């Protein structure tokens, strides 16, 4: 089923039997598609958690000040 690597040299591999442009542009698009749709949501996730943290710190501080000010 797996015969062997189909190429005897690196330049032959790049050439893809004369279809270098077509084969490589498809695999490049595929790579961009994969990376973008994993990395963007991961980055967004980090960003949301960071905002969440900041909001919590601000909330805690205002609570602290309020307690400090209160006369009771």
């Amino acid at each position, binding site marked *: 089923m*797996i015969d*062997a690597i189909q190429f005897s040299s690196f330049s032959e591999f790049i050439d893809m039997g004369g279809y270098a442009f*077509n084969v490589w542009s498809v695999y490049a698009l595929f790579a961009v598609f994969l990376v973008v749709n*994993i990395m963007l*949501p991961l980055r967004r996730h980090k960003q949301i958690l960071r905002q969440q943290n900041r909001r919590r710190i601000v909330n805690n501080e205002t609570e602290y000040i309020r307690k400090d000010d209160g006369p009771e």
Partner: protein
Amino acid sequence: MWFSKLGSPKWFYELTSKWLPWLIGAMVIFLTTGVIWALLYLPPDYQQGFTSRILVVHVAVAGSSLSFFPLMAVAGIITLVWRMKLADMVAKTAAVLGVWFSFLTLATGSIWGSVMWGTWWEWSDSRLVSMLFQFFLLMGVVSLRSALEDSDKAAKLCALLSIVGCINVVIIKYSVEWWNTLHQPASPLSMSTESPNGPEFWVATGVMIIGVYLFLSVSLILSTRNEILERERRSQWVQDLG
């Protein structure tokens, strides 16, 4: 009811936290195997030469792109009937990912067709045009969501569009059998190594299809988790995260 728990965003978030490392691991294994196999070991096709390597990607992405509308329709019905918030979040993120899948299907097909058919595009081909329609329909769903302030109305309209999209999915699927123009029908699988579509081609494609479906799930889960955090940011369990 059993799915009231399933519909809880918190439950989904915690469950996927456990699943994600495994899903990502499996996805990386299948995609790397698929790509290396296709690019290095796949023998040239007797008619197409090495452009058959394009089809390994094209078939996997095109096939899985058909699952978006059925998924969105089911999610839409669940949203409308049982008002499950999680289903609506999945429907929203699926539409965006579906646009990517449809675009890549059209692009890879076009790049293959430019050398094998001698044309980048053919308006009279039903498969090509119905796939283009799916791309526009998904774009419509995405822009409808961002245009409508009323999220209840948006969910209803999107559910309706998803059902139209499902009819189109059937048309895409059978277009190559109903109208015989340029796009070839699906090739029959063959166990024989003598066949032009013997195991060396379809096993490589099978590995890629599994990899692409895993990728679809991972990306969908990641975006849905973000959607959960944004919509539920006022609830205590989200505030305790991070």
